[in-house]
């Protein structure tokens, strides 16, 4: 499979002292599930912003299907349209992502921007609403939704565009267990249908479920290791070092003890 996305020595800082991403390199193949994992503040969201061309690296380069993603290339109307249609990004905070007056408007916005006719856009919106079980919300203003509903609408608003690559920042955030299971299943099916999925998360459970190729970001904003789910989740020393797992206290009846989380591949109890 060809590389759909390639990052070469990407560095980004807000100010010289506030480094967000340091010398990050990796590539993502077409049709693969790729996870960027790391503790809070390690730069996962910044990295997704860079990949989606919202921010631009201070040094290094990013390419999408062998085309450089720079401020200049995205100023070209045709390439910008092509890139934005091909790559859908679901933000961590759905509040920021929803900007249309109602849920239906939100779902229609993307396909209409792509130049789809109204009926096609409406069909897509209806199908997505039915799938995500949000059809009862279609005329509701987005600010009147609960956190979980907003997240589902945000995911739906990107899915109606049917992008080739789906970037999802903290997919499990603000979702109840049933919707989480549904989303995992949806991602697996979308991937089987050929979509490339890139997620940023610190939920190892999600990584365990989706079995992606994983890049671990350290607290120093660098890539610590890239490998398969098995390789990463079995490297306990790495997970402890990057603050992705830590010993925790818990009770068994009256007995209190502490140990590392036990629900992943390295199961130890």
């Amino acid at each position, binding site marked *: 499979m060809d590389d759909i996305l390639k990052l070469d020595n990407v560095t980004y800082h807000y100010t010289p002292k506030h480094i967000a991403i340091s010398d990050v390199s990796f590539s993502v193949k077409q049709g693969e599930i790729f996870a960027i994992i790391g503790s809070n503040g390690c730069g996962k969201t910044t990295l997704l912003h860079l990949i989606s061309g919202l921010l631009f690296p201070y040094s290094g380069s990013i390419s999408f299907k062998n085309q450089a993603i720079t401020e200049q290339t995205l100023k070209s109307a045709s390439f910008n349209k092509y890139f934005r249609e091909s790559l859908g990004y679901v933000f961590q905070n759905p509040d920021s992502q929803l900007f249309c007056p109602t849920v239906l408007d939100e779902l229609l916005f993307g396909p209409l921007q792509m130049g789809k006719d109204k009926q096609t856009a409406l069909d897509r919106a209806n199908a997505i609403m*039915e799938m995500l079980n949000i059809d009862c919300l279609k005329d509701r203003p987005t600010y009147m939704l609960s956190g979980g509903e907003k997240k589902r609408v945000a995911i739906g608003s990107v899915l109606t565009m049917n992008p080739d690559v789906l970037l999802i920042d903290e997919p499990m955030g603000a979702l109840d267990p049933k919707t989480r299971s549904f989303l995992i299943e949806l991602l697996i099916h979308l991937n089987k249908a050929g979509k490339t999925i890139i997620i940023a998360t610190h939920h190892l459970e999600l990584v365990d479920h989706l079995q992606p190729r994983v890049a671990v970001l350290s607290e120093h904003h660098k890539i610590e290791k890239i490998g398969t789910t098995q390789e990463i989740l079995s490297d306990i020393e790495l997970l402890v070092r990057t603050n992705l797992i830590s010993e925790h206290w818990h009770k068994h009846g009256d007995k209190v003890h502490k140990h590392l989380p036990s629900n992943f591949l390295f199961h130890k109890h």
Partner: protein
Amino acid sequence: MKDQIPSFLLVSETRPLPLKHQRIRQQLPFIDRTLRKVSLFIKTGYLQSETSSSKGLLQKIDARIKILFLVCFIIQINILQQIPAQLYIAGFLLSLCILSCLKVIDIYNKILILSFFFGFLVLAPASLNVVTNGKIILTIFHFQETKQFWIYHIPADIGITKEGALVVAKLYVKVVNSLTLTFLILYTTPFNEIIKALKVFKIPDMFLLIITMTYKFIFILAHTVQETYFALKLRWWKKVKNSEADKIIAGRIVYIFRKSWNRYEEVYGAMIARGFSGHVNFCYLRKIRTTDICFLALFLIANLVIYLI
């Protein structure tokens, strides 16, 4: 599950890669412009916190001494009428900027822009003979005859007078010096230290609390606006009708307003929950050290020397 997924999602769209990038043009420049401005604002905030924690002369001085320095020097700048004395002050402040490892060119750029609008442009009319009498050194406009408009007497020649130019120069230098001094303190003192120092000077608690919350809120708001515009940029690349654009922008304004309101209610709730009853107790842990006393002495000497000159 698979049959629940709409069929269009299970097939890839045909999207030919544009062979040649079209002519560069921005469909919705306001999105980029807003993002640039917001990013710059956030960056300025970070830079302020960075420069205030670097290892320069003024950064080592206690905030209370710096606030005292600020107040006394502002008074002195406004009392002194001679231009040479103001120039000595300007030189003194410039040397403090250099010794505090600040980016002098960046700071003076900001000072000169601000002083041009709030100093020079506002004061410029005072240099004309219609405001300040005196000998005209540069004629700007010539009428055939003098005119009387209501209570105003308009002379035949309108121009800049020597006395007027001197008044403008004096006031302009005062504005530049006051701004330099304020920037100097702002860039060398962390914001929380400034607030704590103001508390020592008996500034009312409520006032300090409002300043602190406003400062914090502006940053949160800037981040919210940035995220919002990022979301717009991702899905809005084609020009839409003005009415639709108005709807979306209005929706975003309502959203930000609601968000601000909710944030205000949450913060107030959090304050009440932590025992807030109208008084703020800031804890000032830092003690006055020898360096602070030395700076205080230096500043008093400088003050006296400039005054005597």
